[in-house]
């Protein structure tokens, strides 16, 4: 059974097809890099898969459960790092973690302690006062705390300085490699995807233009960046 199976998944906002007939599978243990320029539909696709949005048409199953039949308990098996800021701004980091702990039976306290200290999450700072970097670190600690089978990372490194980005990616590679979980990483940075992913899907204008193992998607003589630019440029023309 694949971790994700999507067939003709479509979401329309008014006259805009934010995700247009996305069809792809993700095998368990795969790290899929969802690569696309800003506005390509990556975040919308992730929101459809985690259940924050409903598809206009098409079907998808996440961890064997079809979207239309999914219930809240699926959240105990997945982790999600969103691009939007919606952690309660009056809570501090420790309170966010304590709140989440109460709902998740598989909470791994040792892992959380390790993550928060390694990520240097400022536990006593209110969410409203956290910088983008610290906010993402707190989100990552929350997303990994219950050792999920499937993790969705929506542009986790955007807005971070190069050193913080490098450090965060190293930690993600290590944590994910340790657990052999399935990861969907959306990014517009080819470098991030190349570093983490073994499979890549190139998206633009809501459509998946190419999907497969990184070496197969890359044309023989080109780098992933050149291939990406070629796909996106071809579509623009």
């Amino acid at each position, binding site marked *: 059974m694949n971790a994700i199976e999507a067939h003709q998944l479509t979401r329309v906002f008014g006259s805009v097809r934010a995700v247009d007939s996305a069809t792809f599978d993700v095998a368990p243990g795969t790290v899929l890099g969802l690569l696309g320029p800003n506005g390509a539909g990556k975040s919308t696709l992730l929101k459809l898969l985690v259940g*924050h949005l409903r598809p206009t048409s098409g079907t998808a199953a996440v961890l064997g459960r079809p979207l239309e039949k999914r219930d*809240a308990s699926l959240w105990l098996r997945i982790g999600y790092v969103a691009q939007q800021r919606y952690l309660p701004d009056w809570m501090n980091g420790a309170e966010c973690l304590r*709140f989440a702990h109460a709902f998740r039976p598989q909470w791994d306290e040792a892992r959380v302690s390790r993550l928060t200290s390694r990520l240097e999450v400022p536990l006593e700072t209110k969410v409203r006062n956290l910088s983008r970097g610290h906010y993402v670190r707190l989100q990552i600690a929350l997303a990994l705390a219950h050792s999920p089978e499937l993790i969705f990372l929506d542009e986790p490194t955007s807005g971070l300085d190069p050193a913080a980005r490098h450090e965060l990616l190293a930690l993600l590679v290590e944590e994910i490699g340790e657990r052999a979980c399935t990861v969907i990483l959306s990014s517009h940075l080819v470098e991030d995807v190349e570093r983490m992913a073994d499979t890549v899907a190139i998206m633009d204008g809501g459509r998946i233009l190419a999907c497969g193992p990184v070496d197969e998607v890359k044309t023989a003589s080109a780098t992933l960046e050149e291939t990406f630019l070629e796909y996106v440029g071809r579509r623009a023309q």
Partner: protein
Amino acid sequence: MIREIVWKEWRENRWKYVSLWLVFNAPLLILALALALSHTARLPFADLDNHSMMKYLPLALGESFMVTSIFLLVTALVAVATFLPELDYKVFFVFEQGVPRRRYVFAKLLNAALHVALAVCFAILLAPAAVYGMMLMGGKVTLAGSGAAFSAVMTAAARTLPLCCLLSLTAFVGSALIAVLVRRWWVAMGCATLFVLSFGYVAWGENPFFKMDDFFEAVAPGKTMSVSAGFGSGPWLKVSDVFPMPTGFALWHWQPIATTVLLIGLFSLGLAAVYQRKELK
């Protein structure tokens, strides 16, 4: 799970509930301040004895009218302020913890209902108790001579509690539903105000669903009474006749109970449906 949601709700909404308590008890606070600061305001209280205290004590039952009429507006505004701000993004943090959406809405509603009901009960019972306390402090009213009258007024106040709570909760849940449907702060406030005014008009009007005229029958049939108030040099409050012992106050009917319970149920299901369909765009 419930404990965490109650904690979150308390941290997010505690000042809104505190303001509800303050407003509900504002008439009493104003009366206490007036008595403390003004000699003329104290005059009627100073003359009271065990026989004439019944002239004024049942006026405290007016708190039941206030809570179910003008204060419904405050209840509605607290409902809008409680439900509107979280629905844009913040609520998704709770959903991501694996909390079923319907269960979260009902837990949130139950928590809010407890706060509203507690505030209503406290205000309605405190008013006669505090007014009686002020009378006792005047010196001429004695516990032995007026205990039975006080007990009758407190019992009458207690009889109003179930319907007053239900009416307040109907206004609260209805306004919460309006808030999550309308989504714009000022429009929601306006619509909730309109809803409460219409609801109050229907509830207090003559119709088979509420029968409020019987419920709050304060003066015995055939008796007339006038209450006048002024801020001159004489007593601030004058009551022309003595209230009857309020044994018949708050006559229970099944219609208003059934109507409000039905409305609360329908509004709650509406709220749950909105939360269930909410998307993070």
